[in-house]
């Protein structure tokens, strides 16, 4: 059991009527891993998560969680999962501690044990001073932390986090990341969806990029950047602004591995930023501003899933 994958999906499909949300994906998640689903809205991330959480029945394919069948063994699997859903579903009329104790009881824990774990987890997510307060006045970040504490109450083998930091301010996000990182250090297996690239880079050992219900790329953040992007990106802006971009892009052909003209600037994907800049000058181009930066997952993501707005 120890080294068997916690999640195995083979040809997993989810359809809603005519709409195919998940279109035949294969994946494995190993114990202790932090695994991410990255993708634009409607890519099928949440549908996949709901199937893994055993609250949505796959239309086709095989899905095994913790060595059990996701359809047949739903309750037994859910007993060992911790789920942090995209939409908060805390009980607003209960206190912070009551939310945890009530939830712990759903897993069949004794009252004493439920209370012990509630206090311990409130400590962990830094909400002990709010234990007897209501949920309603908590900030978005605090509610998220409480939801994560709630997901930990059954000491789960697998924690599912659906867009854990969406809508939070930077301070709240960083605190949350730090807590999730600690969870991971304790040996928890994390599976999360996100459309924040920095979140994926911060938290995930390995991730898949989903688009249109399919997995379009898979690997560690670093290996994805190596495979689908270049080491560095040169961002050039020109004084003639919006009109000249296409012409400048043509003039930049061959400077890097790929040239990506955007409405307001041109991105040049290169291995060596300084060498590329020298080449730009040699060609007599005169950008109004120049930025050389390291490639990020965002470059990979936009390359793979396109720049068209999906919503």
């Amino acid at each position: 059991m120890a080294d068997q994958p916690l999640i195995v999906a083979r040809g997993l499909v989810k359809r809603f009527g005519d709409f195919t949300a998940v279109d035949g994906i294969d994946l494995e998640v190993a114990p202790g891993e932090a695994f991410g689903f990255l993708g634009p809205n409607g890519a099928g991330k949440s549908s996949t998560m709901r199937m893994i959480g055993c609250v949505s029945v796959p239309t086709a394919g095989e899905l095994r969680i913790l060595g059990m069948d996701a359809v047949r063994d739903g309750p037994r699997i859910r007993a060992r999962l911790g789920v942090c859903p995209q939409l908060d579903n805390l009980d607003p009329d209960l206190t912070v501690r009551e939310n945890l104790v009530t939830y712990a009881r759903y897993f069949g824990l004794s009252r004493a044990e439920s209370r012990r774990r509630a206090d311990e987890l409130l400590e962990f997510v830094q909400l002990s001073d709010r234990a007897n307060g209501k949920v309603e006045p908590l900030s978005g970040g605090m509610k998220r932390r409480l939801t994560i504490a709630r997901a930990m109450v059954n000491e789960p083998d697998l924690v599912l986090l659906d867009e854990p930091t969406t809508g939070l301010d930077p301070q709240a996000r960083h605190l949350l990341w730090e807590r999730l990182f600690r969870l991971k250090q304790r040996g928890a297996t994390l599976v999360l969806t996100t459309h924040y690239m920095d979140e994926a880079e911060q938290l995930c050992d390995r991730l898949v990029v989903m688009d249109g219900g399919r997995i379009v790329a898979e690997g560690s953040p670093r290996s994805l950047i190596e495979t689908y992007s270049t080491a560095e990106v040169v961002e050039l802006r020109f004084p003639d602004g919006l009109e000249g971009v296409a012409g400048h892009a043509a003039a930049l052909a061959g400077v890097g591995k790929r040239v990506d003209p955007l409405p307001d600037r041109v991105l040049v994907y290169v291995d060596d930023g300084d060498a590329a800049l020298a080449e730009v000058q040699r060609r007599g181009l005169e950008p109004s501003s120049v930025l050389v930066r390291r490639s990020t997952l965002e470059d990979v993501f936009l390359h793979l899933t396109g720049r068209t707005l999906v919503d």
Partner: protein
Amino acid sequence: MALTRSVHPTFAVLERHLTLYRRLWQASVFSSFVMPVLFLLSIGIGVGGYVGSVQGVDYLSWIVPGVLASTAFQIAVGESTYAVLGDFKWVRAYHAMRATPVNVADMVRGHLLYLVFRVTVTVLAFLVVVVFFGGLHSPWAPATVLVCALVTVAVAAPVTAFAATIDQDSYFALLFRLIVLPAALFSGVFFPVEQLVVGFRLLAYASPLWHAVELCRAATLGRAPAWPVWAHAGYLLVWAVVGVVLAVRAFRGRLED
């Protein structure tokens, strides 16, 4: 690895409702206890002074069992409408439960057990008050607790199914106006259904409330109900069983895809 379970999921759901009730009970005391007592005093004693006796007993004693069953009916319906829809739509408490070993049958049973608890407490308090007014005439009077529990499930289960199916609370206005209010007025709570023209009387027979009123009246007055006891109880039981099946199906439809 497997957790040793110290509480059944159904009771864990019940516990959530009780925890919430502990915070909100003051608000419900008026509607579920003070109101029926005021009703009893104003109509039972006030109106009763003019009416005199009905079917051989004083009017107060005659409406006590009706108000009892009617109170159970009101709590059952009232607590199975906005509360249920809200736990799907706004609080999403049922979605939270769904991610745990709690299954939809546990959710429905936990909710119904909570209502039986609420009704039982109310009925017991009400009975104690009524004793002082000399409103109970039979050692069978405590059996009203069982009757009220039964009518609670018989009514709450189908209403819960309804609440779990709809997406807008405006449907509740229809439920209250077209079904609940007529049922409360024409189910033999305030006057014998024999007063009604035949068509309406058939509607009264269809109403689970009338059957509960008949059983309660039999218990507090120590006389035989209109139909055999098993027929009244059986009718309520059918409502309860069908209602639970519908409610479980409605919960499943809402939570599973």
